[in-house]
Each structure stands twice: as structure tokens, then as C-alpha cells.
């Protein structure tokens, strides 16, 4: 290998090589951090929600006018929705998971003056709540009809039992079985009767997304949400019938946001998806610019050195040796750029960590980015290098 003469020749014509090396360094810094952010967003979007995302239809109902017997209306709605072919379970809810709207309460395992309340998503459901959401009960028992409290302001009775998520249980009662324990919520004392494996709450970017509490309770009021579980593959058929079914019972109300839960989530993760698209575009653009830069420098170098290549061929260089010369030259430039790029990528990540609360870059992103740029560099230079290898040795004797 002729690394030393290639390096010394490069150092005598360093402007182009330095520019490309800097471009490679910049590309590595941006690409590794962008990959890291893209992967984080992808992980966020694709983390399991604990719910049967594809087979749940949600809807919001808003009654118009006064003197409505909300409880009677809701009971009729639940019956009618359950009767739609393909529907397996229906529940009322104060909020739709992953929708960006909901209710949060402070809960704790004890109630003292120093109590630190844990912010927790709160979902008020009927006895069919868990089945309607497709949640996996891992401990304790499910709600029964007797657990469900229909709130009446004149009685002011609240539910006594709750089911909580595993994440909340581990947070409130670390290293303990939460079932049977008392959960304090302001002035109320609730009993944990069950634990579900996982459930995402309302706000996708909230750190407490997995800390949720399911309360067997219905607040009959001017608006309420329905969560309708369908048989697999019948979501669209059910969705198309929900509005008319509800209007057939009472058309003096507004039926809104009849959506599949998967679409609700997609909408809530919109900014994350947009970020992924933007960063992917930036990465592609940067890689393209880098490839074009390498191709340009290599092509220019080959054009400028055609006679020199012919001379090398005349002196006995085989075609593959000329090809290798340009590949090695590019590899050296890329390696210098990548060495700088490692420092730049680390500095850039530090800046993002400090100013944008991004996590620290996992170590393997940098070698992965280096490998990509090395391969890309070889790919980019191969065309001009191959052209160089085809230069005739007879060029050496041409005087013009």
C-alpha cells in the first residue's frame, strides 16, 4: 500500500481535501445526532401502549338543550352501541387515551403534611372499561357492576376501588404488592383492587404517560366519550355506524371525533413524526451533498491528473493499482474527516443535551455513522476512480 506517498501528495494539494474532510466531519456530527433523535422518536411512537389500538373506536357526544336525563341516555347509548355487529365491549370515559386531553390527579400511598403527590392520569370507566381498552390485568380483579358509581351531586358518592397500571404501582408501592393497598387522592381513600400491565394516558410527551388510574365511575353530564372495542378487522364497519346509531336514539346532540384509537395516537404523535421526516430529509440531503462533494473532488482530481495517471500506467501500474490509489486517497480524506467528526459529533450532542434536554448519544451511533460515511465515500469515489483506471498509458507520450 502506498499510503505515505498518497498522504504526502495530498498534503501538498490540501485545499480540496480539507474542505471535503470538514464536510465529512460536519456530516458525521449532524447525521449521528439526527439518527439518534430519529430513533428516539421512532421508539417513542412505537412503544407498546397496552391497548388494542387497531380495534378501538372512540367518539365524543355533546348533548344540546336542557332537561336531558343523561344517565338514561348514556345507558341507552351503551346498549345501542353494544348491539352494533362487530362490537365486543363499550365503556364511557371522561377522556380518550393518547388524545392530548384528559384528567390528572395527585395520588400517594400515604397522606401526611409532607406527602409528595404523584401526578397520575385518571380515567373514569364502567365495568367494561378494561375489556373496552384491551388492557391486560396482571394482578387482582376486574371491576364489577357493583363497583361502578354513577355520580350524583346530591349524594356526592365517589368510587371506592381503583385499578392502577404497573408503572404507577411500582412508583407508589416499590417492592410491594399494590393490590389491597390504600391509595390516597386528596381527601379520598381508594382501594387498589387490580393492576394492569400497561396503559398509556392522555399526553404522549408526558413523563407520566404510563402512570394511570382507572376509576369505575360515570359522570353523567352534557358530554361524554365512548370507547368501543370491535372484533379484529371490523373497526371501519363499526365506525361507520356509530354516528347514525347514536343519532337514532337522540338527534339533539353533536357526535364528534369518531376515530380509531390508532388514528388518535398518530395525530398525537404528529410532531414526532414530522420531526422524523424533517431530520431524515436533512440526513439524506447532507449525505447527498457529501457524496456529490466527494464525487466532484475525485472527478476533478482525475481530470487534473490524467497525464500523471497515464505516466503511472506507463511505469507499470495495473488498472487495479490506479483504482486502489484513488480509493485509498479518498479513504484517507474520509478518515481525517471522520476523526474530526467524532469530536464534532460529541460536542454537538453535548450542546443538545445542555440546551435541549436531549439524552446523551449512545456510543454506537458514532461508529455506525463512521461506517456509513466510509462506505458512502468508497461508493462515491468508485466511479471517478474506475474512470482513472481506464486511462491509457499512451497518454504519457502525448505532448499536448
Amino acid at each position, binding site marked *: 500500500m*502506498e499510503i505515505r506517498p498518497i498522504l504526502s*501528495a495530498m498534503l501538498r494539494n490540501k485545499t480540496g481535501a480539507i474542505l471535503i474532510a470538514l464536510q465529512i466531519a460536519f456530516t458525521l456530527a449532524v447525521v449521528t445526532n439526527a439518527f439518534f433523535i430519529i430513533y428516539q422518536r421512532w421508539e417513542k411512537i412505537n412503544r407498546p401502549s397496552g391497548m388494542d389500538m387497531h380495534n378501538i373506536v372512540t367518539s365524543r357526544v355533546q348533548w344540546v338543550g336542557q332537561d336531558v336525563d343523561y344517565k338514561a341516555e348514556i345507558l341507552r347509548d351503551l346498549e345501542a352501541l353494544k348491539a352494533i355487529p362487530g362490537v365486543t365491549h363499550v365503556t364511557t370515559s371522561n377522556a380518550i387515551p393518547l388524545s392530548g386531553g384528559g384528567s390528572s390527579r395527585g395520588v400517594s400511598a400515604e397522606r401526611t403534611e409532607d406527602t409528595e403527590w404523584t401526578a397520575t392520569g385518571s380515567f373514569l370507566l364502567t365495568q367494561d372499561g378494561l375489556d373496552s381498552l384491551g388492557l391486560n390485568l396482571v394482578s387482582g380483579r376486574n371491576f364489577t357492576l357493583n363497583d361502578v358509581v354513577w355520580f350524583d351531586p346530591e349524594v356526592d358518592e365517589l368510587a371506592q376501588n381503583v385499578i392502577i397500571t404497573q408503572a404507577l404501582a411500582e412508583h407508589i408501592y416499590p417492592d410491594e404488592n399494590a393490590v389491597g393497598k390504600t391509595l390516597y387522592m386528596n381527601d379520598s381513600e381508594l382501594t387498589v383492587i387490580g393492576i394492569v400491565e400497561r396503559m398509556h394516558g392522555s399526553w404522549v410527551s408526558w413523563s407520566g404517560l404510563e402512570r394511570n388510574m382507572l376509576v369505575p365511575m360515570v359522570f353523567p353530564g352534557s358530554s361524554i366519550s365512548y370507547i368501543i372495542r370491535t372484533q379484529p378487522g371490523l373497526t371501519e364497519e363499526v365506525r361507520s355506524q356509530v354516528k347514525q346509531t347514536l343519532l337514532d336514539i337522540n338527534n339533539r346532540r353533536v357526535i364528534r371525533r369518531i376515530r380509531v384509537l390508532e388514528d388518535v395516537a398518530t395525530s398525537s404523535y404528529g410532531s414526532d413524526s414530522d420531526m422524523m421526516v424533517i431530520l431524515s430529509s436533512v440526513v439524506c440531503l447532507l449525505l447527498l451533498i457529501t457524496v456529490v462533494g466527494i464525487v466532484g473532488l475525485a472527478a476533478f482530481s482525475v481530470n487534473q491528473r490524467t497525464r500523471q495517471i497515464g505516466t*503511472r500506467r*506507463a*511505469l*507499470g*501500474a495495473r488498472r487495479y*493499482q490506479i483504482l486502489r490509489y484513488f480509493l485509498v486517497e479518498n479513504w484517507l480524506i474520509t478518515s481525517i474527516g471522520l476523526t474530526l467528526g467524532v469530536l464534532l459529533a460529541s460536542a454537538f450532542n453535548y450542546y443538545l443535551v445542555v440546551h435541549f434536554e436531549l439524552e446523551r448519544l449512545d456510543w454506537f451511533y458514532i461508529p455506525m455513522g463512521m461506517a456509513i460515511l466510509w462506505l458512502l465515500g468508497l461508493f462515491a469515489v468508485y466511479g471517478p476512480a474506475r474512470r482513472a483506471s481506464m486511462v491509457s498509458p499512451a497518454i504519457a*507520450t502525448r505532448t499536448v
Partner: protein
Amino acid sequence: MLAMNNISKVFRTDLVETHALRDFNLQVNEGEFVSVTGPSGSGKTTFLNIAGLLDDFSHGQYVLDGEDVSGLNDNERSRIRNEKIGFIFQSFNLIPDLNIRDNVEVPLRYRGLSANDRRQRIEKALSIVGLASRAKHLPAQLSGGQQQRVAIARALAGEPRLLLADEPTGNLDSMMARQIMELLESIHSNGTTIIMVTHDAELSRRATRNVHIMDGQVSEINLHEQMQANVAQA
């Protein structure tokens, strides 16, 4: 050393067909110093390119150092160029980004010699041309004559059986040209076969044989016989 039998070289375009060499026959014996002359466009460079395996020919047979090179592939031709032929070009063809030492080393690297072997050959070749002290200089830091001596050192380092020189003094003044010619004569006196293409009649006369090319064919003059004839006439 070199035998060309009925060599033809035709350059073709869509419109024109040019016969650069036609039924070209030439034999050069080992140890000869042959000058090749002829007007511009006569086929001198084409002959040199074919002799040096830099270019293909259309028809005929070419035997170099006892080996028929007519049907060899590019790799084999490269190997023979590297091991058996030394080139001296009119424009020196040094690599401007490499110092003198690295320039001389170029063909040796392609031969795959060890670093130690390369170093010894480079030192020897540079001392023959009197430039051992300039090993670290760049070509641009040398005069034209010195550059051509580096090119000669590069050719000599490979210890070639055949040295091909294409107008080696064409870009030099007369004093430099004389020095280069003396160097070539010295190399020839050590047994190396030299074929030199030149326009310079005086230089041509210093060779042991002159081959004159006209319209792609050989018109040969034996300088010694001519000189003897001249002496007898006088």
C-alpha cells in the same frame, strides 16, 4: 531484443481511417543504441507507444526480449513495462506532488519490491544521475535538465532491459541536452539497449544506428556504414 514484423496501426473514426504504421518491420539487437527520426506525423510516437506496450497494434507480430507480446492482456503488458522497459519522456512526466525520491520509487512500488530493496535502488539510480543530494526536493525545485535526470534515474532504478526515450532533450537547452546525451551514452556503454526518438540530427548521429520513419514505414540508415563510406570517399 525487439522484433516487429509487419506491424500495422490504424486509427479509425467514423469518417477517417489513418494508417500510422503500415507493414512496419524492425529488429533491434541487445545492446544497440538506436535513434528514430522522421518528420512530424511519420509514426515515430506510434512506434514508440507500440514498442513500449503503451498502445495496441492492429496487425502483425511483436517479439520483445524473446516473448511474443502480441496477444497479452493489460495486466501482462503492465508487468512487462514495469520489469523490462524504462521510459524517458520529453516532458519528464515527473509527479509534481512527490519528491525526487518518491518519484524514482513509483515503478518500484508497482513491482512489489521490499522497502530495503527499493531504498538501495533509489540511492544507486540517483547517484548515477548525480542527484543523490536532491532526494527530498520537489520537481518544481529543479531545473529542466535535473528533472530529466530524475526521469532517467526513475527509468534506471527498475534496471530495464530496454530504455525508450521520447525526445529526451526536446525541452532542454543545448548544454543540458549534451549532458543528458552523455548520460544516455554512459548507460548504453553499460549494456542497456536504448531506442531514442529525436528530431535532432546531431543527437541522432551519436546513436549506433538510425532508423528513419516515413509514412509509417522504416527507412533505415546504418550510421557506422555511412561514416565508413564517407571516409572511403574522402
